[in-house]
């Protein structure tokens, strides 16, 4: 399972490095969204607003949806799907590989967006650095959940359902992540929000390992 996961993750990351869709399309979109959020808050309110963490995670949600769609499309052509299906890859390994690649991509984009939050939304640097590990866990949980919901929406023509279908699953992650970031900026305790994100990450990884094969077979 681990060997399959590393093989799939390596393949997805190599494809992303070649196509640069995330670099030239998704990342600029996220930055533009942050700029617009900063403009909406205005120069006098941005540094004093409680909205910064929420806006960060709103942008992270948009970016996650685009990245999950991209991850689905890599396997999307029916000919590719059939050819790869006859490789008989372990579905749990495929899920872990796709979630790992997605998490690495989201971490890279998340780092830029966190820097953007400091620069554009005037979030405190110390609080943002303190929140960074919790952001990493939340983005990993979003990657795991996104990979699972992506498989659910993988059938051709169904990818537009991804935002609606994944919304109930994403909301607890986004709330926990936002609360953790908010607590870090306010100097409060983060651990309870960490626990929620970690439990959600473990739950989505376990669900993905168990269910990904079933969802693949339904394509």
């Amino acid at each position, binding site marked *: 399972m681990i060997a399959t996961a590393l*093989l799939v993750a390596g*393949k997805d990351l190599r*494809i992303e490095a*070649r196509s640069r869709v995330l670099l030239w399309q998704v990342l600029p979109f996220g930055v533009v969204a942050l700029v617009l959020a900063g403009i909406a808050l205005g120069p006098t309110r941005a540094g004093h607003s409680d909205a910064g963490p929420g806006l960060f995670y709103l942008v992270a949600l948009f970016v996650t949806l685009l990245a999950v769609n991209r991850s689905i499309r890599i396997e999307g052509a029916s000919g*590719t799907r059939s*050819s790869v299906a006859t*490789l008989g890859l372990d579905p749990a390994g495929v899920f872990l590989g796709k979630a790992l690649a997605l998490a690495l991509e989201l971490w890279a984009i998340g780092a830029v967006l966190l820097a953007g939050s400091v620069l554009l939304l005037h979030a405190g640097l110390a609080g943002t650095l303190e929140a960074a590990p919790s952001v990493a866990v939340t983005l990993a949980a979003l990657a795991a959940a996104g990979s699972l919901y992506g498989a659910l929406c993988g059938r051709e023509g169904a990818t537009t359902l991804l935002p609606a279908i994944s919304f109930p699953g994403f909301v607890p992650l986004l709330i926990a992540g936002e609360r953790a970031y908010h607590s870090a900026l306010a100097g409060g305790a983060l651990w309870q929000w960490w626990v929620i994100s970690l439990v959600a990450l473990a739950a989505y990884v376990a669900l993905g390992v168990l269910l990904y094969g079933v969802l693949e077979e339904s394509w």
Partner: protein
Amino acid sequence: MAVVSLEGAVVTSGGYPLLAGVDLVVEAETLTVATGPNGAGKTSLLRLLGGLVGLSAGRASVCGVDLAGGDRRALRRRVGWLGHEGSFYDELSVRENLVFAARALGRPTSSIDAALERVGLASRSDTAARRLSAGQRRRLGLAWLLVRRAELWLLDEPYASLDDEGRDFLDALLADVVAAGATVLVSAHDPLRSARLAPRTLAMAGGRVVADRPGGSR
């Protein structure tokens, strides 16, 4: 020894019968061509044999795996599928696609150079798959199957997009893989006009085999 054994095999999709009761036995190390018009059931037959669609009714055994209750994933590792659409990761190079397939199956990557040489793509090994012509993509698919060393080759319209030289090349390749012990099923709109091959030909219509001409005669 029979590699494929179907008795009244039915495959449906959304209530519509794609295969409507197919009886078929295919012996090992043979070449069989399924012909017929669009919608005859050729592709559905190949997809059933590849474990890519489920059996709705009847009995089916492929490479010793019972399709009604057996491990379809185990079967898939023993068959090679080449569809008429693109079958690869377009952003990866020719070689990277083959390395992925070899590693997924635990096959040695040392066979890749020989496969590329065999299909005439050695000089394009570092080219992204999306930059290949339709005929070259077909050859990449064949290299993918060579690297996989599949027991059962399932080729859906493999002659499409191939020029005369490519068709001759495919004829020679299929003759070689059958001689090497593989079993090959091909779908085609028309019976093969190959001078080299005289395969068993199944005429299909309406999801059924309506005529079965044995191989070895023209």
